[in-house]
């Protein structure tokens, strides 16, 4: 059986950053990714990041993914395993892998789970019709594979993802019929909202989807208004002509492996659902297991990168690779606190507090 000091599961921004920081301390690292490419969700993000992140503001997500991937590939201390899915974790610190041509085991003193998140479904009539797609799926189809998702799209959700993907759809030559948002106001940044509005896309706050129309696949949608208690108002139905209903209604952390490994889990709505309890080092209740990125709580890519750095540094330190590690950890923690400061970080701060209350320590 092959063995390594630190295994990182998932090669999105969190996993790549974790691998780099751990290898930087001198630990031997393997990064395991089920996809054929490094970068996770970032490879399909064509828009520029702004504001929050000091280093990467103004850079497109896919460019950031490229930089991190190159650094990982160029690092002799990191063994990259693409096309390999982690299927399980055994208590003797062994990961079970499905590689392209075989099943194998990998022994790791520490494991960092950076498996990301899955898109959430929304309940409405005929929500299983072909043509009801997640926003990430729409992004993958058009930005990675160059295929238009349809002809005319109804976007559901006016958070940043819904707004940004609407804009990207228009760049791909698609028409966006409208954006519906159940909340009374737009959740995303107003710069993004202004951009789609300027392009003539109406943003209908206080509305949701009642049902998808079409026998074999989506041929339209019926939307209706919600009252101040979020109850639909009969008689307010409107038919929207569209062949795609795109759901940008949130993400849930992908935590199956941590459930299976016996990490103590807590339900924290602000973090996207069930997440493993973790401390400031991103260490879970199972001593050898760390978590980073969306899997530790749905946030955004900048926080995922800093979180990954912290998990990588802390895991390396726990194995005795401690040269200069305290200063690096302190700096990363400062950066994370800065990212979460202010009104946009309020929800995450509340969620992390709840996580600590719901947890009883290690």
């Amino acid at each position, binding site marked *: 059986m092959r063995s390594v000091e630190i295994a990182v599961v998932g090669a999105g921004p969190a996993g790549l950053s974790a691998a780099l920081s751990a290898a930087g301390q001198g630990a031997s690292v393997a990064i395991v990714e089920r996809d054929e490419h490094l970068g996770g969700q970032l490879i399909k993000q064509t828009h520029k990041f702004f504001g929050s992140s000091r280093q990467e503001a103004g850079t497109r997500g896919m460019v950031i993914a490229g930089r991190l991937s190159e650094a990982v590939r160029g690092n002799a201390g990191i063994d990259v395993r693409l096309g390999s899915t982690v299927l399980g974790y055994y208590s003797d610190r062994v990961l079970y892998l499905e590689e392209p041509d075989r099943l194998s085991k990998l022994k790791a003193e520490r494991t960092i789970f950076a498996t990301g998140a899955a*898109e959430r479904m929304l309940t409405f009539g005929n929500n299983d019709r*072909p043509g009801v797609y997640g926003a990430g*799926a729409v992004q993958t189809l*058009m*930005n990675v*594979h*160059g295929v238009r998702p349809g002809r005319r799209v109804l976007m559901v959700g006016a958070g940043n993802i819904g707004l940004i993907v609407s804009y990207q759809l228009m760049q791909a030559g698609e028409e966006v019929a409208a954006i519906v948002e159940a909340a009374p106001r737009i959740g995303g940044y107003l710069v993004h909202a202004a951009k789609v509005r300027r392009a003539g896309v109406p943003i209908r706050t206080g509305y949701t989807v009642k049902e998808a129309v079409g026998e074999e696949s989506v041929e339209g949608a019926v939307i209706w208004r919600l009252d101040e208690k979020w109850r639909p108002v009969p008689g307010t139905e409107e038919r929207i002509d569209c062949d795609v209903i795109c759901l940008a209604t949130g993400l849930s952390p992908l935590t199956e492996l941590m459930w299976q490994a016996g990490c103590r889990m807590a339900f924290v709505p602000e973090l996207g659902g069930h997440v493993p309890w973790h401390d400031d080092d991103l260490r879970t209740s199972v001593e050898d297991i760390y978590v980073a990125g969306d899997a530790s709580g749905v946030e955004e890519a900048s926080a995922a990168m800093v979180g990954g750095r912290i998990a990588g540094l802390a895991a390396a330190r726990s194995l005795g690779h401690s040269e200069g590690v305290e200063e690096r950890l302190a700096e990363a923690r400062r950066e994370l606190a800065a990212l979460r400061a202010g009104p946009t970080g309020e929800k995450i701060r509340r969620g992390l507090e709840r996580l600590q209350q719901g947890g009883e320590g290690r």
Partner: protein
Amino acid sequence: MRIVEHPILDFKRGRLVRFTFEGRELEGFEGEPIAAALHAAGVRVLRRSAKLHRPRGFFCAIGNCSSCLMVVDGVPNVRVCVEKLRPGIRVERQEGHGELK
């Protein structure tokens, strides 16, 4: 349905290859997900559900949700959103749970 011009992106596509869908010959780019090739050809119904036989397509496109299971070269339950297109493969809609022959 293929994006030809894009203000930011430049698509690197594999060579054009043929495959069959329900016995019908279609074309797609080698190495792209089977679901992308089908979608570009206008095919959105990928299978029928086990109990109510409702039409299903893909949902997540990254191999998480299992909404896109099809029969590929006789093998059922293939997640076509992450399975690569190869020349000459036989792709069929899956009815229900699929059968291993």
